[in-house]
């Protein structure tokens, strides 16, 4: 069953991110919402993985934050938008953070560029000392 873009726009899920458990909760809810939008199973996994990465970053760098999952549409294509917000330290150099292999944490340095590859559209807004908002979109394919 494929939902029409018009019919599902506006559905929204807000998940506070404070611990490991919330990461799993967020990616499960993301997978559910992606299924509802009509994403095939492979794309559901890509979306769940992107949510896992972005929420992991919240815990690692900001300790806590929030994820908003929302159904959206682009023309006749239903899609999903993931907004991950925190009030953490912020990213001093976004350009650099978007380069492959760059990391400040003890990770594999795949953070933002990796997430970007999993999704269709990607946006990072960050202010040092204020926090970071990552917004990612993915659209269903026919």
């Amino acid at each position, binding site marked *: 069953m494929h939902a029409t873009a018009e019919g599902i726009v506006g559905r929204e899920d807000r998940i506070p991110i404070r611990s490991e458990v919330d990461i799993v909760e967020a990616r499960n809810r993301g997978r559910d919402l992606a299924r509802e939008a009509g994403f095939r199973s492979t794309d559901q996994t890509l979306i*769940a993985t992107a949510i896992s*990465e972005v929420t992991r970053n919240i815990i690692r760098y900001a300790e806590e934050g929030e994820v908003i999952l929302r159904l959206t549409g682009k023309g006749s294509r239903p899609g999903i938008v993931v907004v991950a917000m925190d009030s953490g330290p912020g990213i001093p150099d976004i350009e650099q953070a978007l380069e492959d292999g760059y990391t400040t944490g003890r990770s594999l340095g*795949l953070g933002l560029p990796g997430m970007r*590859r*999993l999704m269709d559209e990607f946006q990072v807004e960050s202010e040092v000392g204020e926090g970071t908002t990552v917004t990612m979109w993915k659209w269903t394919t026919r």
Partner: protein
Amino acid sequence: MIDVSVLDVLDSFATRTLQDAAEMLSLRGVKVVIVGIQPEVAFAMVQLGLTLGDIATALDLDEGLALLDERIG
């Protein structure tokens, strides 16, 4: 043998944890094989840029056992 077939997501943190576990076991002389990475999980890992380096992998438990048989001889 580490069976990850129940995992529906392997992000960079989970992969790092697996790598660390495999590395520690290798240092203790253990032959490690990771089995059961689901096809969609493998696809997402490649998109994300994740690899398991030189850690041995196999399709499932049977294939993993066969591989270990070969290696241990």
